[in-house]
């Protein structure tokens, strides 16, 4: 019996130590920091909306792969400050109207850390004409843009994380 208890104790302590893994994430491409580089990266070419995650806490996240029908929708942040969308032939079906063209104006703060969007018409995702939405630029390269914002609603608050990519 003593041997059994000793054996289990050894296993438990062994597991306690082996369970601690290192988070060894190093991004392949570091996020841009220069305001001009950030601006150029945003404007360079159309983005494809890849994902939206709702983060209530690190252990309460709503996320997953985006519907393939969104893979052919192109979002452009133009030099003149207009944000435009061109929907592809695959219609997701649950939007009342997928209208191409300008949907908002955009503006970067001088540090390139926040992206302000002023919506000029209603858009999927619950954005209404006149909404002013300020995003924090969390990660940006020429291939990937991750923006975040804190949303506070009656009874709950969460962080919304949107990801755009380009090939």
């Amino acid at each position, binding site marked *: 019996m003593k041997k059994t208890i000793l054996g289990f104790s050894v296993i438990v302590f062994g597991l*306690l130590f082996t369970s601690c893994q290192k988070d060894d*994430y190093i991004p392949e491409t570091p996020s841009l920091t220069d305001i001009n580089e950030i601006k150029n990266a945003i404007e360079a070419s159309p983005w494809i909306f890849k994902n939206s*995650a709702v983060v209530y806490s690190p252990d309460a*996240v709503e*996320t997953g792969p985006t519907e393939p029908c969104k893979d052919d929708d192109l979002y452009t942040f133009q030099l003149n400050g207009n944000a435009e969308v061109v929907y592809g032939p695959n219609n997701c079906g649950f939007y009342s109207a997928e209208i191409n063209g300008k949907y908002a104006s955009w503006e970067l703060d001088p540090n390139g850390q926040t992206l302000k969007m002023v919506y000029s018409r209603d858009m999927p995702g619950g954005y209404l004409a006149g909404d002013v939405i300020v995003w924090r630029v969390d990660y940006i390269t020429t291939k990937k843009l991750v923006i975040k914002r804190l949303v506070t609603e009656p009874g709950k608050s969460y962080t919304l994380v949107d990801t755009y990519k380009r090939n």
Partner: protein
Amino acid sequence: MKLFLSVLFVLILSFMKGQQVVMPLDRIYLNDSITIYEGFIVEQAPAIYVKILRKIEQDTLQLSMKDIWKMTREYPRADTTTVTAPSKKAAHRQTKNKYVYAEALGSAGLYSLNYDFRFNENRRDGWGLRSGFSYLNLTTYNYSGDVLNYRVLLLPLQVNYLFGKQKRFFEVGLGATYIIKSRQGTLMAPEYEYTIKYLGRRIPNVLGTMSLGYRRLPVKGKIMWGISATPLIGNSFTLPNIGFKIGYKLS
């Protein structure tokens, strides 16, 4: 005549000795399904106690009725009447409180294979330990929707206590499930961003576990089963869960 009478007397004596009546004995079986006392019941207070006079041990025992499973009257059995005290080996053979069982859902989340035993080898109730394992392939997503698969080994370890008698037991257990995970791909974001598909929670390194439920153990057969509430307790969450177990008694 004298000779005849002498022979007859000797014959009668031999016959009487040969025909010595084998008297049935009382047997008292205790709730632990292991202990059996054999002798003559000499006193009984209904619903309170029974006194048994043991022939071989030459003593008298008073047993509380609540500890008694059943009482019978049987002819003596060679295996018990001739052995005064079981050897250590024999006692070990009597122990039947070790089980292997499969659990659906339960302390390892989805399923597990387990081994369970009592610390006291001569009891079916009381303190015990359950240990097991489970292997899963889990798909996770980060906040950008990138997929990363994990191979996960879950090791539930739980100290439990069984209340009850005969075959019906109430189980209370407390323990932890240790999780060893191995990434099957490259991180595209910090690892804390990866959450399990549908659950929206990270794969933890360890989960606290509880077990509150019913366990049915065989007295004569081999199959055990049970059902328990088995909540999983994480760092910042508690997942309600239920476990169904079915298993086999090891001889």
